[in-house]
């Protein structure tokens, strides 16, 4: 078998095919349904293989969520104790058990949750404890839809994973409200947002292509100065959007930092393990033609 023959080996064929497929996949905007604007980069601290959450940002984000978003959006998979979890907004190494964290206890106590009287079974409202879930603003999904013109505000627990490029998307959407372009037929109760997924072609009466984005039932939720930050940060719409996006990212993936740290150790181990095994392989096959 000559060298030329070897060039077109199975490996070469497959590797080049995979490479070609990879180039195609990267070059084309995969699955981009509709014509939403590409989200702006929020410059978040948690991006990249070593990125971690910015605790101050998470605390500000919680405040925005609690004072603005929580009036319509639930976060059913979060418990108050999660706020004091490791890498969480109110994590304090002095309290390894987040249920003992006084800040978390106080934050829970600020809210009322539905319960029943343990003897009579009657419905009552009591102060929340760290073990309680975040209370949902609506008793059920039907009530949520009815109170919002038929569109129930989605749960935000995993929102940063439920949208492509989640954190940047949330940041862009919240800070990206603009006046609808002239020539766009707006239905009542609808708002225009260039970052919302959708296709506005059927509603476009202006010239040229339909504008990017789609209709969203939620009107612009943030105004400058709506929240007063405890750390003195100026509460611009951009700042609040960024902070709440970071908070939702943490809520969606609370084990992210733990995951990246574990991954670093695992990869180092695997690379060393591969090196040792390769050396063993070379020794065993030494002098054996194959």
């Amino acid at each position, binding site marked *: 078998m000559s060298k030329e023959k070897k060039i077109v080996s199975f490996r070469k064929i497959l590797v080049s*095919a995979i490479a070609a497929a990879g180039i195609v996949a990267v070059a084309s905007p995969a699955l981009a349904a509709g014509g939403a604007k590409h989200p702006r980069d929020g410059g978040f601290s948690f991006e990249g293989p070593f990125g971690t959450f910015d605790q101050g940002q998470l605390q500000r984000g919680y405040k925005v969520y609690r004072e603005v978003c929580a009036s319509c959006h639930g976060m059913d998979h979060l418990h108050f104790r*999660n706020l004091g979890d490791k890498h969480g907004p109110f994590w304090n190494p002095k309290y390894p058990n987040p249920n003992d964290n006084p800040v978390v206890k106080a934050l829970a106590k600020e809210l009322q949750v539905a319960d029943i009287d343990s003897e009579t079974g009657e419905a009552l409202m009591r102060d929340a404890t760290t073990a309680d879930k975040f209370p949902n603003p609506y008793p059920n999904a039907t009530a949520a839809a009815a109170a919002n013109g038929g569109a129930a505000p989605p749960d935000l627990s995993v929102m940063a994973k439920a949208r492509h490029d989640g954190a940047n998307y949330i940041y862009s959407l919240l800070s990206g409200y603009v006046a609808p372009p002239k020539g766009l037929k707006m239905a009542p109760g609808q708002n225009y947002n260039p970052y919302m997924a959708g296709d506005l072609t059927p509603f476009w009466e202006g010239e040229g292509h339909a504008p990017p984005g789609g209709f969203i039932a939620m009107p612009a939720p943030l105004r400058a100065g709506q929240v007063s930050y405890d750390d003195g940060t100026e509460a611009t719409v951009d700042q609040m959007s960024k902070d709440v996006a970071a908070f939702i990212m943490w809520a969606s993936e609370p084990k992210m930092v733990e995951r990246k740290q574990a991954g670093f150790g695992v*990869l180092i181990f695997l690379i060393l393990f591969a090196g040792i095994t390769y050396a063993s392989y070379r020794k*065993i096959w030494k002098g*054996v033609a194959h």
Partner: protein
Amino acid sequence: MSNHESTYVPKTAIERWLDTRLPIVRFGMDYANLPTPRNLNYWWTFGGILAICLMTQIISGIVLAMHYTPHIGLAFASVERIMRDVPGGWLIRYVHANGASMFFIAVYLHMLRGLYYGSYKAPREMIWIIGCVIFFLMIATAFLGYVLPWGQMSFWGAEVITNLIGAIPVVGEPILIWLRGGPAIDNATLNRFFSLHYLLPFVIAGCVVLHLWALHAAGQNNPVGILIPKDREKKDMLPFHPYFTVKDGFAIILFFILFAVFVFYNPNALGHADNYIPANPLQTPAHIVPEWYMLPFYAILRAVPDKFGGVVAMFAAIGILFVLPWIDRSSVRSMRYRPTMKIFFVIFLFVCFGLGWCGAQLPDAPVIPGMPSFTLLDGKLNSYLWLTRLFTLYYFAFLGPIMFFVGLKEKPLPIPASISEPVLKTEAEKA
């Protein structure tokens, strides 16, 4: 190799006692000493990698089942509880979810290796057929498992795929209702999908035993593709241990590095964001797609304008693999010595990727945006619909008539008399 003699001699009294009652040590030792063609390259390590994948999925799956609740009102929340509250639960779930993708990467490479080196040809037809059964069961298991988190993609994937059965004339509708346990995908469906998702991996494991049994009966293929005569066994073969245990082991570690990069740094890259939205039977996501490993078959399904025809085409795409050993008429196994077939094989590879690509696109979307096009029958020529049809045609042509006729007509390159011959040549070239 089929009647390779046992060389195990029990040394101690205990070993002798055990050997006459349960020769499990003998079995293990014979396995370790199994003569294996010395020229097996790294493409042959995917068998071992797949065994590890199956074990990973079964073990992580058993663990997840300890925490998962198969109920439409609780399934999504129980998965989130695994991610948040169960100690290390996020790791186990990400391993299981990405493990499915890793499993398919390995199985596709394993199948392509078999295709390229003619591992399906006599006397190895049964190995190939059992392998095809395993592949089919893997698809079924992966589909059932994807329904369990009860997200939007879970629900609508189940809806669309079960509806395929409804396309069967006359009996389709009753079977569909029976399969779902009601007129729509609901709690009954989720319960039975969970049960079956737990069952099928063990059926796969059983098939793997048969796969290996058939492999040891017929003997391993090798990159040269020739059968190794009995008198050359000493020259051409090496014991499985330590030569191939260490080679497989090294490949498995490299594979795990790729696996770990996904699990720890990009755990959701191979999934779809919509599956983090709880299932809503009243609203379909804007653009539904199956997991990447099903995309080529999904593309073939959509290529056919008729509903039942699409289903038939999709199943035929897997079904044709079963009869491949009898379609291929070439007497030469390895494509190393089949220059014409090699060209068709390269095109086939691109077509498989192409089908996968098309499966993720909207059928009416233009392939080259802005290029003028005319309408042919039911769609624009410059659309994924027609590109998919072109690819589908080639897919079946390659596995059917091309295999058949090229096998008859092609003039293969000279084939070495033994597998040591090319080995020696390369050695000499190196020297």
